């Protein structure tokens, strides 16, 4: 297998003692930041971006891979021990995971989450190894019109299909597109929306946007609603599983992986749907076997969704590497990180800089393995982080957010932008505007304009040039189906979002009771 040889070369580049050290640091930092309450994986990656400034691409990637998986695992630890998922993808894990923890089985819940993440992440990354190059070789042949169509698809999917309220999704998307407009126009070099500020003409750094919206916005929002009564943290021992737990977990791990990867790899994106499907499947199977512990802390309900979550996260690398399309908040931040190294993800990446791609994929596998090795013994330490007093915790988040935004360009003006964007992030949370469409708008907006102008220049200004490629037409048909399907479904049965939210409500109700 050609791909495997290339991957082996990637391992060769990655497996030096120095790189392994970077990877271990990345895993530790990622888990550390991810465990902190209020910080999801996307925010963890955004906050830790500056740590890799000034590093060479390969060590930076391997550190990122560690941060990425560490941040995700940290997020599940929080949701299991606190029953308050930081992001929608870990809602399902929190359901049974917290029940297990309260039944005194926190150690087993964390263990099945860690091992499940490892298995799903490894299988998922191996699938990326096989799929991404194939997709990229197809992608090289497609032109600007199809690209434009694909970006429309990604935006429509993220905005109207995944979110609860399409209107709010579109508001967030267009705010993001507006932010993406700021700066010099690509062709004519004129500043747009820059208020005669030379610093704005340079475009707003995506790192500043990500840190402002994710980290500062979240910290300000929490500050406005800080829980005065501390949450109950469940103490945890060293994670371990006995043979029964293992026998009950491996099926859900594999089924969760099977659900997660395709959803991550499609531009439909998101881990919400596969984690939900995995949860439902495991519940149904448990019922059929007559050992239904769901509602009392079933290990299957942690193993399956956790695997689905991680497999979907691995799957998002397929559209990210092959097409340059991010479909989750975390992969949007990863894309910004890659761009920071002058690497433009897209079909050219696989052929132009293959050694980087294979090093990144090898890094993901190494990071995943190190995560398992480091985090199983360290779980009790991470659990202690949940007890950091909240004022100091959020002061620390503010400190690192400012550091990250400032270190990118050493401009005090960037800090000012950070504050403005933080207030925007606060307003978005207040008005229930989803964050992902905004980030996607900021990143994809300029790319989309570039492709649009390229396509129109080729066709000599004829609008029909936008659907001159068969693949572009196919994508537009998918867009049309995606837009109309929810309306059709809504007539037949309740809205998909309502169905999805249903299992989330018990957790929220319990929270209210306490």
């Amino acid at each position, binding site marked *: 297998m050609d791909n495997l040889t290339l991957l082996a070369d990637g391992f060769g580049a990655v497996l030096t003692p120095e790189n392994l050290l970077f990877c271990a640091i990345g895993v530790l930092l990622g888990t550390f930041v991810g465990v902190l309450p209020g910080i999801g994986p996307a925010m963890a990656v955004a906050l830790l971006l500056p740590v890799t400034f000034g590093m060479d691409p390969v060590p930076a990637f391997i550190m990122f891979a560690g941060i990425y998986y560490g941040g995700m695992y940290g997020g599940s630890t929080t949701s299991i021990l606190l029953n308050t998922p930081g992001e929608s993808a870990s809602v399902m894990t929190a359901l049974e995971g917290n029940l297990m923890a309260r039944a005194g089985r926190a150690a087993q819940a964390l263990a099945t989450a860690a091992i499940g993440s490892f298995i799903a992440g490894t299988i998922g990354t191996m699938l990326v190894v096989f799929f991404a190059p194939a997709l990229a070789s197809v992608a090289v042949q497609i032109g600007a019109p199809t690209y434009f169509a694909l970006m429309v698809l990604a935006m429509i999917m993220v905005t109207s299909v995944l979110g*609860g309220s399409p209107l709010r999704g579109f508001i967030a998307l267009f705010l993001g597109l507006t932010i993406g407009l700021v700066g010099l126009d690509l062709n*004519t070099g004129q500043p747009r*929306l820059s208020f005669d500020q030379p610093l704005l003409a340079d475009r707003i750094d995506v790192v500043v946007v990500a840190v402002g919206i994710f980290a500062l916005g979240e910290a300000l*929002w929490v500050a406005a609603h*800080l829980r005065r009564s501390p949450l109950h943290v469940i103490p945890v021992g060293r994670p371990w599983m006995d043979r029964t737990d293992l026998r009950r977990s491996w099926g859900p791990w594999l089924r969760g992986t099977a659900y997660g990867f395709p959803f991550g790899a499609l531009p439909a994106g998101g881990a919400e749907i596969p984690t939900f499907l995995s949860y439902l499947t495991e519940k149904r199977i448990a019922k059929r076997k007559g050992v239904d512990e769901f509602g009392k802390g079933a290990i299957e309900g942690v193993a399956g969704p956790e695997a689905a979550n991680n497999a979907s996260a691995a799957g998002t690398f397929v559209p990210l590497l092959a097409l340059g399309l991010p479909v989750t908040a975390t992969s949007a931040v990863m894309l910004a990180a890659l761009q920071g190294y002058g690497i433009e993800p897209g079909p050219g990446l696989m052929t132009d800089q293959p050694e980087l791609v294979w090093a990144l994929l090898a890094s993901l596998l190494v990071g995943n393995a190190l995560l398992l090795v480091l985090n199983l013994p360290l779980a009790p330490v991470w659990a202690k982080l949940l007890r950091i007093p909240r004022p100091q915790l959020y002061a620390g988040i503010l*400190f690192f957010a400012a550091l990250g935004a400032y270190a990118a360009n050493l401009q005090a003006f960037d800090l000012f932008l950070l504050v*403005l964007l933080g207030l925007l992030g*606060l307003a978005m949370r207040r008005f229930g505007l989803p964050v992902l469409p905004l980030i996607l708008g900021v990143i994809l907006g300029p790319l989309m304009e570039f492709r*649009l102008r390229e396509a129109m220049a080729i066709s000599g200004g004829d609008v029909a040039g936008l659907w001159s490629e068969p693949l572009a037409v196919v994508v537009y048909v998918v867009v049309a189906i995606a837009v109309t399907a929810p309306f059709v479904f809504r007539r037949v049965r309740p809205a998909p979002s309502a169905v999805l939210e249903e299992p989330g409500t018990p957790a929220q109700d319990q929270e209210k009771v306490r």
Partner: protein
Amino acid sequence: MSTPLDTPTTAESPRTSPGPDRDLAQLGLAAALVVIGAYTVYDASTLRVGFGDPVGPRVFPYVIGTVTVVLGVLLTIATLRGDVAEAEGGEDVDLRQPADWLTVLKLVGVLMVTVLTVSFLGWAISGAILFVGAAWSLGSRTLVRDVIVGLVLSVSSWYFFHEGLGVILPAGILDGVL
């Protein structure tokens, strides 16, 4: 860009009384959208069109600005029809209490101090002020401990960026000391 500043402060009334049918603060957001969209369109109209580029620099902002205005109008209609925003929950978020905008204001003030001082006081001092000020705003009253933690964080991050990453954060008044 300044409009998001105003919106959160107007949001207080509907949060404190949980009963109202209409979320009138959303009208502020809708108005902000209309203003942002209209300005985007105006700004684009001042651009010169280049040669040999059938799309030009104006089309994209025209479309974005127009749609943003339309979204603002749609949000107004939805709000008047009784659409209420579902505020985001979270690990440390307690939505049952009324929002505490005073704390947010204090934090923004502390951040602005950092913005204004970082260039001449340097990161080691400004960063420490940021940490201490933010912790105090959020209700911490262990001032001595916060100052020690803040200084350790800011000085160690300065050295980490300097030695480890080759990024020279400004030393400010501590130039030569660090």
